[in-house]
Every structure is written in C-alpha cells, then in structure tokens.
C-alpha cells in the first residue's frame, strides 16, 4: 500500500444547536494517489467532513469535534491556520465565491504567494497549470467573464499550482452543463496520469465519475459510515440500502438491479451493462406517450432582452411539461424570467391567458403563475418553515383550519416536518430547495416555472420532487423546468426547448431531440437510456452474420 497521508480516527462532529452529531465515529485513511468518492444523502455531513480534513475544523467550528485527524502524521489541531492547505487542497461547490482576485493569473498567483514561492518561479507554474486545465488562453482574463465550467477549472488550477498531496472536490460539477461536466472529469483523469495526488470527490451524479473513482466511502442518513472499500463492491453489497437512503447509483447499476438481471459483477458503466447475456431484458424504451396538450396558455411574440434573449417566439399550452436546456450562460434563466413577467422584455410582447403581461395586476398574475428561483434563499419571506408554506395557503383558504391541514400535509410530503419550527435559512441546501418548491406548489397555479430545482439533490429528494411535480402536472398545471439533467428531460418532459445564445435552437419532443446528432453543439449530452439503446443496437448489429 502506498504512503498514508490522512488518517481519521473516531471522528465525530457536533454542531452547537443540534443534539445529534452530524457524523460519528468515522475512521479511515487516505493514501497517496488514491481516488475516493464520498457518497451520502443530502445533509449527511459530507461537506463538514472536508472541513475536518483540511484543518478548518475544529478551529472555525461552532460545536465540537471529537476524535482526531492527522495529515502526514501531524494532528490538524496543531497546524497553523492555512498551513494544512499545503497538503490538502479543496475546490468548493460554489464557483462564484472561491476567488478573491480579479484576473485568472492573479488568482493562481495568490496561492503561490501564500506559500512564499519565489517570484521567478511563479510564471512557469502558472503557465503549466493553466495548460493542464486548458485555460492558458484566458491567463489575463477577468474572472467574472469566465463561464461556470471555466471557473470550476480555474478553481482546480489554483489548487493544482500549490501541489497538495490530496485534492478534495466538493460537488464540482453541480453547476455545470452536461458537456462541461464531462469535460471537467476528463481534465481530471488526464491530470491523474501526469501528476501525483490523491483525489477525494463528493458528488451526487455518479455516471461521469465511475471510471475515475475506485474507492467509495458511503455515509448514511444518521452520520454513520455504511461502507468503505472498492466502489463496485459497495454498490453490490449495499444496493438496497443505498436506494432506501436515497443515494444516487450509476445508471447501469440501477438498471441492472431494477430489471433483475443476473450479473457476476455489478455493471457500473453502460458498456458493461450491454454485455449481459440476455440483452432483451434491457428494454428501457418509453411507452408511446398518450399526452395531449390543451389550449394556448402563454404566448411570446418576438421577445428580446438586452443581448441575452434574441427575438424569440413561442407558445406554452395547457398541460405541458417543458424542459429548457442549453449551455451555461445561453440565456435559459433570462428567457424564463421574461416569460414569467419578472423582467420586462426590451422588445416584443408576451400574453398570458389571452391578456398581455403588462395588463395583468401583479397579484392576480402570480396567483396563476409561479416561479421557483435558482437560489432558494431569495424567496423566503417568513421566520419559520411552517409559516413559509402556510403563507400562500392562508391567502387561498381563509378558513385557517383548512390552511393548517394543508400545510401539515405539504410538510409531510416534502419531509420537512421535523424542521417546521426552524428558520428557513438554518436548513441544509437540499432542504432549502425542497422548501422553496413546497412553498410555491402550495398555491394552485396553472403555470409553474422552476430554475434547476433538482440541482445538488440526492436521488430520494429528486425523485420525491419530480413525483410532486408530476402530480401537479397530471392535475393540469403546465410546468416549465430549466435543467442540466438530461435523464430528467427524457423521463418527464413532453417538450424540450434548446436555448443557444439567446435563441431557441430546437423546440421538439424529447424523442425527436434524441434523434438529432448535433446535441454537442449546445453543450448537451444524450440521456443514459438513449446511450444504452444505441449500444444495444450496435451490439445486435455486430451479431448479424455476414
């Protein structure tokens, strides 16, 4: 076994205001050049665990940390602030807030300056890391001008430049479009060949990572370690409880288990899944949709906004489930905000239920039209989770008992009961997201916009959320959802809008979109189901005797 770098022993973490520990009695080692995936449901303390590894906790912790973490044999408690980062570098989840300088080169230099790297050597190091993440041409660019994917690569480059022995990535692809995330993983794989570092990744969406990360460390809801060992074996042994805990599994593994296909080794990649002996079991095609849409609900005529949305026309009908997809920064959010009347178009007109948006009284409009923001915190207006949901219901049901009954029901549906007296801001990211959707769904709108509602959610929360949305949809609400998750598009949408540079590049049913060969141009990928079908077909074709 190669050299041990991090050793955690009986690590438990308690936050001040909570009785239960975030996680307890974790013991593990991280060795040089290892690739570890940390897996667990939302709120199981994965991000907190990282803070323990890089020495930030217990120093900055409001609570207590029990047990010990050593980095190269030295306890993290003994490191000076910032000193452990020489050994353990972290790339954080939010690409916006991890920079403190204005340009790309300055940001990388910042870390080097902290390490007291001589000035003469800096230039070479900066060039080197920029080359290895593919950002060299942006060396003197302003950070604010970079796309989400580029920012995440820059964050990685900053850490690479400092040459730590362990690099930790906290949901690095959560904010990225499908191609950018694949690209990010590819960059990392290439780096692993060139440089020596151990890699620890926290991630919900596993499909892109399967080949890179061979060890899994699985945390449970209650903060106890479920499994630590080879990734595949973990999936094989604990598939049932993973599903129960709502932890994502790779598509191939999920399908194999769902279809009860016998296997020697649980497939993790679609390529492996295709090679089972009885491929006819793998029929994953959707039943032909019987969906029928209703009358026109919302209509946009040649709408433009700044340079972000360019003369767009479209109609939204009753009973439609529309997915808006496209690259980071292509104008998806701006378009949805225009359609919802949040921003006013600089050109063009939008009408809702036959009346121009500008003629609607705001209050009446938003009784019929809902919008869930990307950042859930923006829309919280009360002091408790309970009040947050009850707020809209009280307006709808003047009978307070009815409102209370409904509130309790929604709290239960969204698994928020035990938090009902908490302040909305005190919830975990996943819970906040659920609350923001719950508060919106409480009203019976006829059209609902959601801006990346499933981002950063574990499998259980995503399933739950989609189930609730489908319920609304089946009762007649039209849903417009911005998402990067092509599997959701495939599974739920009745219509897809592909946005590219402020224009609608395609407006088709998902089935028709998958037939097109140019998804790459829009930074999109094919859903797993389609890839599986293609590979199956390829395999069948190659069996045809010639």
């Amino acid at each position: 076994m190669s050299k041990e770098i991090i050793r955690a022993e009986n690590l438990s973490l308690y936050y001040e205001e909570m009785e239960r520990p975030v996680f307890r009695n974790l013991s593990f080692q991280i060795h040089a050049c290892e690739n570890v995936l940390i897996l667990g449901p939302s709120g199981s303390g994965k991000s907190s665990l990282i803070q323990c590894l890089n020495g930030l906790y217990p120093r900055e912790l409001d609570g207590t940390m029990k047990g010990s973490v050593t980095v190269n044999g030295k306890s993290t408690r003994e490191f000076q602030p910032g000193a452990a980062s020489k050994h353990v570098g972290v790339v954080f989840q939010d690409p916006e807030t991890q920079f403190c300088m204005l340009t790309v080169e300055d940001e990388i230099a910042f870390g080097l300056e902290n390490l007291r790297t001589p000035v003469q050597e800096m230039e070479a190091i900066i060039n080197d890391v920029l080359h290895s993440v593919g950002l060299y041409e942006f060396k003197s660019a302003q950070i604010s001008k970079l796309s989400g994917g580029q920012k995440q690569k820059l964050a990685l480059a900053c850490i690479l430049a400092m040459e730590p022995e362990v690099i930790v990535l906290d949901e690095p692809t959560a904010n990225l479009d499908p191609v950018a995330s694949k690209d990010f993983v590819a960059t990392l794989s290439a780096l692993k060949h060139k440089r020596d570092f151990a890699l620890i990744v926290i991630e919900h969406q596993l499909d892109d990572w399967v080949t890179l990360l061979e060890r899994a460390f699985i945390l449970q809801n209650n903060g106890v370690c479920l499994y630590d060992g080879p990734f595949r074996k973990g999936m094989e042994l604990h598939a049932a409880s993973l599903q129960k805990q709502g932890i994502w599994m790779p598509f191939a593994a999920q399908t194999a288990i769902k279809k009860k296909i016998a296997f020697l080794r649980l497939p993790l990649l679609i390529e492996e899944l295709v090679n089972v002996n009885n491929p006819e079991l793998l029929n994953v095609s959707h039943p032909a949709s019987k969906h029928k849409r209703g009358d026109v609900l919302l209509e946009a005529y040649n709408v433009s906004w700044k340079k972000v949305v360019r003369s767009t026309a479209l109609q939204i009908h009753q009973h439609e489930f529309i997915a808006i997809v496209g690259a980071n920064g292509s104008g998806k959010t701006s378009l949805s905000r225009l359609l919802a009347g949040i921003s006013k178009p600089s050109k063009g007109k939008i009408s809702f239920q036959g009346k121009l948006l500008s003629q609607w009284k705001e209050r009446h409009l938003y009784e019929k039209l809902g919008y869930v923001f990307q950042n859930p915190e923006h829309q919280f207006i009360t002091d408790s989770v309970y009040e947050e949901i009850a707020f809209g219901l009280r307006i709808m049901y003047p009978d307070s008992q009815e409102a209370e009954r409904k509130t309790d029901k929604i709290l239960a549906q969204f698994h928020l009961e035990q938090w009902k007296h908490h302040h909305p801001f005190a919830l975990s990211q996943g819970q906040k997201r659920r609350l923001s959707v719950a508060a919106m769904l409480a009203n019976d709108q006829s059209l609902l916009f959601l801006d990346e509602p499933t981002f950063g959610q574990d499998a259980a929360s995503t399933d739950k959320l989609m189930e609730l949305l489908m319920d609304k949809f089946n009762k007649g609400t039209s849903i417009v959802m911005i998402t990067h998750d092509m599997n959701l598009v495939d599974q739920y949408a009745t219509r897809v809008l592909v946005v590219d540079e402020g224009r609608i590049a395609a407006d088709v049913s998902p089935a028709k979109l998958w037939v097109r060969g140019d998804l790459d141009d829009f930074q999109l990928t094919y859903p797993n189901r389609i890839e599986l079908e293609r590979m199956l077909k390829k395999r069948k074709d190659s069996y045809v005797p010639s």
Partner: protein
Amino acid sequence: MYLHNVNPSVKALTIVGLVFVLAFLFDPITPLIYIFWTLLITFSFGSFRKKYYIIYFLSFLLFAFGMLWSSIIFADVPNDPAEQVTILGWEVPKEDLLVAISLSLRILAFATLSLLFVFTTNMVQFILSLIQQLKLPPKLAYGILAGYRFLPMMKDEFQHIRSAHRLRGLNEAASFPAKLQQFQRFAIPLLAGAIRKAERTAVAMESKGFTGDRNRTYYRPITISKKDWIFPIIMFSMLGLLIAVSVKFGYFSWYSGQF
C-alpha cells in the same frame, strides 16, 4: 502613460500632501492656477475615457458653485458700503465674497487632484502597493480586494430578492412604514447571503494557504523607482512656485480662522 506607472502609494501620498498644503492657503488665485495645472498634468500624462472625467468634474463643479452661491446668499448684511461689491445687482461684503470664492476653489482643487488619482490608478495595484510599501496588513488588504468583487454580485442579488418577493404575492410597498418593513424583509436574505458568501470566500482563501501573514512573496512586486519621484517633485515645485509668486505680489494669505 506616465501617470499610470507612478507607484500608487507615492501618488496617493503626494495627493494627500498637496491637499494638506492647499488646505492652508486662503487666497483664491493660487488654487485657481493649481486647478488648471492639475488638469493639464492629468490630460497630458494620463489616458482614460474623457467623457467620464468630464461628468465627474462637472458634478464637483456644480457642488463648488453651490457652495459659492450659498455663501454669498447667506452673507452678513454689509455695514460699510466701501467694503462691498455688487454682483448681478446683489450687494455683498467684499471680504465674504473672497472667502466664498477661495473656499469653492479649494474644493475644486481637491477634486481635480482626487480625480487625477482615481482616473490613473488601478485599484488592485493600489492595494498591492499599500501592502508592499505602506505595510497595510494583508488580512485587511485582501479582504478589501475580495469585497470589491462582491459589489456587482450584491446588486444582482438585491434584484433577485425583490422579484422573488413580488412573486410570493408581496406587492411593492407604497407608504413609508410599509417601505421600511419591506426593506427589513429584503435586508435579512441580502445580509445572510452576503455573510455566507464572505464566509465561503474566507474559507476558500484559507484553503489556498492564506494566513494573513506578512511574510509572503508577490507575483506583481510593486517597487519605487527614481522615476516615481518625478511626480511629487513636479507637483510640489509648482505649488511652491505659486506660493512664492503670491508672496511676491502680496496676495498670499494663510488660513487663520476666516469664515
């Protein structure tokens, strides 16, 4: 351009020194000539968008003029007709008028000097120079730099919160108490967001090894060379010359409690 390359700390201290000296001069002629001198230097040795300069300058001019105007209007009623002048049919004491003019011109002189600095200095360079030359603690300086990135983010955030609240059925407030309440509702998520962002940035900075320690190297070392001293020498010589002229012609006056 020369002005952009002057060491920012030297430039800043020069400006502060000049402002300090000008504050003690009380004749109207010296600042007036010095204003033209500063403008000449700014436009000859700096490169920037002239339009913006003019907009800023005009707003200071307006302010200075307002100051002049109000000093004249609120001047004491003259009691000695020999000591008064008439402007646009308005009779004001000569003494008061001179004080008003020199006050306004001083403001304008400070403004032109500040604008010279603002329009020819890169904010990042200035802060780096403050750390390297003037020994500003890095903890503070890098904090300011990080905060500088936050400003546009805060503006976006505010707009998001506003529209999110409108969507939840909270109308734009019309009356003053309602506005106050609305402001509170905005302030909490805005502040919570800002604090959380600041915390994340602080954590990210620390995980890049930032300790606030002065013992660090600099990718952009900012030094003081002989050329940097030309700026203070020229600026102070000119001021000295103007003061000498004013003494020679007898209109020199220190500030000694007038007005």
